[in-house]
């Protein structure tokens, strides 16, 4: 029997994988790089790996502390709390973006006539229920859901392969315009979504049920899922061609719809919808969870006390944007400007502080 507030290696790895999958394969990231979008993904993933190493190093140097504890330690009580509060808000904001994503996508694909307020309320409600049940339950979900999601992807990829609509020639010519457009597409967009979002695990690594930091497992999970995401990206382009893939709202849905020549299973949209639902739910739930955890730690109240208020804020905030266009515009504009601050700048600050401290400690002794 292990403690309620601890998670196993496998749970952590599965959570990393499902969190990184999220809704990512449904979109074509790095569409600006045209047929080289998969190279942009590679670049983004590699840059993300560097960032991940930085995060793991920070965690390694301040074991038993999560992000909030580190901030308080390195920036002082007041500044640390302020930045911690900002992180809590940032996580809530990310969570809210996923809620809105799901609301919009549900209206788009499944329930055009149902009010978004209801679907989003249900969505937040599910996450709230899981977080209310505690860390243990939240981390058990990926153990059931990751195999489900991956097997759905496997079915779809297999069918695409058999149906022969895969044409990897669409990925040529490689590096048509040199490396510049790839780097432009990858940095900072792909780094901040989805790879840079690994920042949330600074809140979670300390939950590991063994001493130390799960470096090997985290990196393995990260690499595996990077390969998967790069493959899915290439798959979309290989089926649809860079033009359509880049311009469509949900390219993966379009990819799957090319399977309609199968007479019996004409529409596999349902699988895509389930993948979307699970991916967004886990991502949104984890951001919500971290937001609750951060603010609970800052205020000294129990996490259960904060579940409802934070949930209400996330739900309320998801109505702030007027429509889908604005939602996307904010996501691609201001949001991308803020991300590097939380994902890169503050971790770097922490790293510098850790180095300085150890340097001072050494020079004084």
């Amino acid at each position: 029997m292990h403690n309620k507030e601890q998670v196993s290696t496998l749970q952590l790895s599965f959570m990393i994988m499902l969190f990184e999958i999220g809704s990512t394969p449904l979109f074509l990231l790095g569409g600006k790089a045209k047929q080289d979008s998969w190279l942009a993904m590679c670049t983004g993933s590699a840059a993300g790996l560097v960032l991940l190493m930085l995060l793991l190093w920070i965690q390694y140097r301040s074991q038993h502390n999560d992000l909030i504890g580190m901030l308080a330690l390195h920036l002082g009580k007041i500044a640390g709390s302020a930045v911690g509060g900002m992180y809590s808000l940032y996580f809530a904001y990310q969570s809210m973006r996923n809620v809105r994503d799901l609301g919009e996508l549900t209206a788009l694909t499944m329930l055009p006539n149902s009010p978004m307020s209801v679907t989003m309320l249900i969505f937040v409600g599910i996450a709230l229920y899981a977080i209310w049940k505690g860390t243990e339950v939240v981390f058990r979900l990926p153990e059931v859901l990751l195999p489900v999601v991956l097997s759905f992807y496997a079915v779809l990829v297999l069918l695409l392969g058999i149906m022969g609509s895969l044409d990897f020639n669409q990925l040529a010519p490689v590096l048509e315009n040199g490396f510049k457009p790839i780097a432009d597409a990858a940095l900072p967009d792909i780094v901040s979504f989805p790879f840079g979002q690994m920042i949330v695990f600074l809140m979670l690594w300390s939950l590991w049920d063994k001493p130390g930091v799960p470096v090997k497992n985290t990196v393995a999970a990260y690499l595996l899922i990077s390969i998967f995401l790069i493959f899915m990206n290439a798959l979309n382009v290989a089926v649809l061609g860079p033009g359509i893939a880049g311009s469509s709202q949900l390219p993966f849905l379009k990819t799957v719809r090319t399977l309609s020549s199968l007479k019996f299973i004409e529409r596999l949209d349902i699988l895509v919808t389930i993948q979307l639902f699970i991916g967004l739910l886990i991502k949104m739930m984890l951001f919500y969870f971290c937001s609750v955890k951060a603010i609970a730690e800052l205020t000294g109240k129990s996490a259960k006390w904060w579940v409802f208020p934070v949930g209400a804020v996330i739900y309320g905030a998801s109505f702030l944007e007027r429509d889908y266009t604005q939602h996307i515009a904010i996501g691609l504009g201001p949001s991308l400007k803020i991300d590097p601050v939380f994902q890169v700048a503050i971790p770097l600050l922490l790293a510098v502080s850790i180095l300085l401290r150890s340097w001072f400690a050494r020079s004084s002794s």
Partner: protein
Amino acid sequence: MPGNPQRTNPNKSDNAEQSVPAPFPLDPSLEVNLQVLSHRIGQSSDIVVRRFTNESLSSLELAFIYIDGLVNADVVNQGVLQPLLETVQLKSEFISATDAFQMIKTQILPIGGVKEGNTLEALLPMLFDGYTLILLEGLQVGMAADTSGWEKRSINEPTSQGVIRGPKEGFTESLRTGTSMLRRRLKTPDLRIEEYKIGQRTQTGVALVYLEGIASEQVLKEIRRRLNAINTDSILESNYIEEFIQDGGLTPFPTIQNTERPDAMAGGILEGQVGIIIDGTPFALLAPSTFFNFFQSSEDYYQRYDISSFLRLIRYSAFFVSMLLPALYIAVTTFHQEMLPTTLLISLAAQREGVPLPALAEALLMELTFDVLREAGVRMPRTIGPAISIVGALVLGQAAVQAGLVSAAMVIVVSFTAISNFVIPSLAIANSIRLIRFVMMFIAATLGLFGIMSFLMVLLIHMAGLRSFGVPYLSPVAPMVPRYLKDIFIRVPLWDMTMRPKTILGEETRRQGEHQQPKPQGEDPV
């Protein structure tokens, strides 16, 4: 021997609802004792009191009390009355009551179980267990000889959990028969049987059966605690115990298995579960149980592993079909028509054209009809069974479609759902999804596939948080223990199951040697 039948909870008598009379210590006078006894148990016709006096010879005077029907008359006559009457020493003038008592107890009675008691309260429960009480004049202690033997049902094939290959005997209503069936299967000194008396008025025997060293101590402690905490006046069936001790509170899912099959119970006990056999019912309990236990049938191990694995997968699919099919039908016909292939859609639409009801009402109507039929099938007298089947199948199925009340597709959906429900080996979990199915249908009618997915997610979260006596309900999937997955969705060959699975709380123990895959010896002969 932990099997002390007098194990009762001390605090139970404190707040018992009926007034418990103060214990009556036996009086030296036999007359007084018999009077108090007859006052306490009344003048029931089945109670036999027989007195022996030997006026001519000695002061030795004794009385037998037993309950007709609970004792084996032969044993009473040959084992108690005859030896007492025939022993010469007892007729001696000089024998004292104390000596006679010792002599009867140690030498005369040819009976295994002889107990003593010095209050009426200690002796009465034995009387009701079929013992014959022997009271002597001048002594403040009584004797009880085990003469029990009542009419029992013989061992039959289990009616609710049949198998094609495997043992055909099931538990009976007798607790002792049940424990003996387990002893016959588990001939190890580690098998422990602890007995409790639960229920102030029924004094039902409840036996806890487990393997020492394999069942988790933590689980055992918890089960004992919960059994001791039961304060009720009657236990008539194992569900009484189940409801009093099972986890979860408001959950639709069962966290304790019930079984009629001694082999299934032996299997469970061998994997670290604790069996609870209750006197008076052939249905025994197994705990702790995880969600996946309910999909395992003892026959899985009596067949080849490949076909067993296939059947397991069929059962899991049947579970989802049974839970989701009507809801999916409603969702697709109401919200997501575009998901169907065009030809199927046209044919469905043509069928539904003449149906006056919306899909939800149609589905509810048929589902409820089926539940009525099913309940009628259980309750009706055997002789009119065929009549009900004909009415059910023809009138409610075919005629309803022809009359335009429901569409043919709906009849298919409902029938397939119903049949799928019976594929699941455990009735307990099959019943729980019967209710979930209705909730699912309402949700599908309001929110379509989105609602179904949301509700599935809520169920998943609920199950992830559920425990059965401390064991997570979804283990070994969540929390995942990969090496225990050998017997969950598929069943690997027996020789590959080296370690005992599922004992999440207990020690992981080896159950057989490694490398037992049968191979020809030496070089390949070809």
